[in-house]
């Protein structure tokens, strides 16, 4: 019990501190508007009235956590209860839109990343010519050209899921390439020599030595790739005219000043990221344990 407190206690304290700061920020940021309103109505606000007002404004500068919570419940749980789980107003609907392009982009990016890494490890020409460009490609702020990719692909007649997935793919292939190149090269000379003494073909060397020993590296990169892929999907939704998806909710919210809507989309995106990364972490634990690689 003491051990659990030792580990979780500080985290719980920090989380509580964040909520306290959030409420304090709500009070500070929303107070001017509340005062302004009271002045025009010609009433003097007591402190408790002021607090009550700052916590329940319709378009606050910073919505209070419980307002965001209510909005999220209203657009997810309540919708499910009403049997309209996937109506256009439901965050579940928008989350699945974002989730599908995230996952497609992630799958494409991982496949491309692993293919490039295998090429780089086995082909000297590719190692020397492609690797520097892979690194250089990431210093380019790719998210900036997201609108162009979407518009151009739309003009060619490709619309919907794929353009967004392309952006996610571009963001997620890099960590996979770097991690897998490191991982595939992680067996040391002794192990490679051992494979040689056993007269292993290069195929056997790949499947039985290099690939298994790259697994820890792969999972670490997959976590980064997944987070990046979600960011790509959200930004990819911005220029499509705010039709559907969490990014569209963000944009629509910022057009109409619906701060509560922005925050609820943001929190949902955060929860989605946490769930996806956590899922890969779980897979990592299970797979590495079965392979006998967990310390």
């Amino acid at each position: 019990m003491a051990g659990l407190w030792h580990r979780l206690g500080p985290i719980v304290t920090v989380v509580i501190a964040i909520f306290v700061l959030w409420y304090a920020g709500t009070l500070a940021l929303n107070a001017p508007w509340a005062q302004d309103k009271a002045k025009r109505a010609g009433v003097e606000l007591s402190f408790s009235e002021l607090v009550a007002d700052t916590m329940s404004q319709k378009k606050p500068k910073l919505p209070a956590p419980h307002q965001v919570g209510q909005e999220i419940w209203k657009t997810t749980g309540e919708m499910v209860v009403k049997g309209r789980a996937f109506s256009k107003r439901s965050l579940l609907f928008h989350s699945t839109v974002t989730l599908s392009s995230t996952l497609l982009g992630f799958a494409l990016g991982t496949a491309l990343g692993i293919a490039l890494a295998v090429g780089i490890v086995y082909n000297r020409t590719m190692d020397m010519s492609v690797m520097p460009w892979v690194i250089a490609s990431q210093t380019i702020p790719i998210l900036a050209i997201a609108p162009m990719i979407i518009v151009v692909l739309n003009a060619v007649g490709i619309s919907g899921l794929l353009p967004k997935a392309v952006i996610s793919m571009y963001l997620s292939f890099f960590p996979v390439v770097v991690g897998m190149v490191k991982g595939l090269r992680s067996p040391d000379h002794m192990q490679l020599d051992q494979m040689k003494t056993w007269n292993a073909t290069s195929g056997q060397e790949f499947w039985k030595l290099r690939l298994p020993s790259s697994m820890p590296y792969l999972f670490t990169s997959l976590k980064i790739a997944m987070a990046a892929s979600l960011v790509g999907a959200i930004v990819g939704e911005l220029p499509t005219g705010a039709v559907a998806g969490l990014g569209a909710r963000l944009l629509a919210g910022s057009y109409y000043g619906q701060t509560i809507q922005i925050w609820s989309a943001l929190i949902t995106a955060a929860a989605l990221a946490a769930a996806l990364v956590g899922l890969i972490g779980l897979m990592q634990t299970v797979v590495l344990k079965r392979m006998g690689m967990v310390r």
Partner: protein
Amino acid sequence: MIWVIAGLAIWAIGWWSNVLLSRRPKTRATGLAVPAIFGITLILIWECMVRGLEISPVLLPPPSMIAARFGVSTGILWEDFVQTVIKGALSGYILGCGAAFLIAVLIDRFPFLQRGLLPVGNFVAALPIIGMAPILVMWFGFDWQSKAAVVVVMVFFPMLVNTVQGLQATDHMQRDLMRTYAASYGQTLLKLRLPAAMPFIFNGLKIATTLALIGAIVAEFFGSPIKGMGFRISTSVGQLALDLVWAEIVVAAVVGSAFYGGVALLEKAVTFWHPSQRG
């Protein structure tokens, strides 16, 4: 048709010369020449294919057209560069990394905070923080201050996590040695732990360079005065002036690489003792 054949020929020549070069023992010259040939070949193939297959410049302008546009509109590009990179990204980068560094040193003194903030920081670093952009634009207005704020939020957590990890990178023997010298906390920090943390700190700084540019540009999609790279990209896409968009991308790519390269050079100078730099 002649352009397509030329493109294929250039591809063959580039590929063949790279294979030849990479078979030779690796020197500095071949290390630079091979990726350079690869890049130039790609650009030439792009030019030939766009001309040969008669792809509309509205979809994909050829490199020569982008270069011409770049030459004509240096004024606009410079204005956007100052607005987005110097005012937005750079000021946010310095503020964010500086604040994260100071807070990391503070956290390091209190193990309780360390155990609490590090997991939370790691969690936040994986979140789509770019989504904060519309909120910050609302709070700080349309001009560069809101862009700098987005950059601060984006670079803060990766930098914090890396610095805290770096400050823990010394081992017991080294810290015990400082103790036997009767070194104070400040001396240990300055002479042992900060230098030992430098590889981690620079890792954070390098990650932050790309994030800073992305943050500054994407934040402009949510509202901006009528200048800035993000603004120009989103409006030019609307006007189908893709050559200008590509010119902005060239600027972004050059700035991004230069920024990253500058930090990497600094790293080389500061952490010359680290195994990864001696090789």
